[in-house]
């Protein structure tokens, strides 16, 4: 059990150290989706070394979205976002 915990901690530490970007930011915006509009007051963005994206939007509702990122240049990441529910990319 102890070994498993140590392994989990090591993996977590490794994930942190390889993270490309992670932050929580206050601001304003909207998330339009087929269920209606969500006003955003805080966004959490995690872009990891494996080109995975996690986007959490908080405001009138809390929404978690996942996706991928393809390249970064001067702090700008090209991203593709899927919904958490069906894991499909809306077109």
């Amino acid at each position, binding site marked *: 059990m102890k070994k498993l915990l140590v392994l989990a901690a090591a993996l977590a530490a490794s994930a942190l150290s390889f993270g490309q970007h992670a932050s*929580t*930011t*206050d601001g304003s915006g909207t998330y339009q989706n087929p269920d209606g509009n969500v006003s955003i007051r805080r966004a959490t963005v995690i872009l990891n070394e494996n080109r995975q994206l996690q*986007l959490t939007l908080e405001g009138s509702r809390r929404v978690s979205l996942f996706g991928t990122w393809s390249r970064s240049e001067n702090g700008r*990441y*090209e991203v593709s976002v899927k919904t958490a529910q069906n894991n499909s990319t*809306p077109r």
Partner: protein
Amino acid sequence: MTGQIDVGNGTYVRRINVASAEGNFRWNISFVGTRESTGNPTNPTNPTNPTNPNLPGAPIDVLRFTDAPRGNGDWQYLGSRASLNRVTVDAQRDGRISFEFPGISRFKIVARYSRLRGDTLPVEIYEGFGARDVRGTGVVSLTRDHTKVLRLTLNGTADGQRFNISFIQGRLAINQNVQGSGTAEVGRNNRQRVYAAQVILDQQGLFTIRGTDGSNLHVNGTWTEDRAGVITLSVTDIRGRRVSYGRGTLNLDTRTDQVRSFSLSGTTDGESFFFDFTVR
């Protein structure tokens, strides 16, 4: 849906623009970040996020104090320069430290502090002036118990514009040119309206108050602060007169130390004098 996330220099999200393909407007994310989150961090993984106290790089010396020392200092930004009489410094356990300059700027400067070097606290500035891109460094010298500020310097850029701030804790000292209305009178039938005045209180306990528009009455003496914002004045000299004495009161804004009003009266060369003024 596809788009861009702009994280600027990496500390927080500047902008998110993501939308579904052309012709389908059902999906869209539009967000403009204004600042690093001040709430509980949703995500604990950002090593550069000062809202997170449990990360590598978080301050080893956890501080918690608020201090609003008086003293003397200099504030320079965007080509303007102002003298500082007071700063408010607030250090949080999560590693953030903020600086306010009452009466000078409505914006806080926010920084992250690192490990103490003796009684000296290095800080890294990341927010201030209402600017989007703020970078700078500073040093705060503290008392031995690490709860009071003795001096500080903050330097950096805000959206490319240089700022330099320095401050040394000390006794109240002010030098203000104020506008408003008042009355100056020496002897009888010599009343003059006053529309502007200069008020100087120095750290040695001497004051000068003089009219700069409407009357040039120039009064000197000594001052003491009896209670917060209330200065008692003792007149010892009026320029151009041989023997003068009298008393007065100067009222300051207790938060900003800005002059609000003053009133002086006494005797000079056997005549009475009176000088009052209220800042507009």
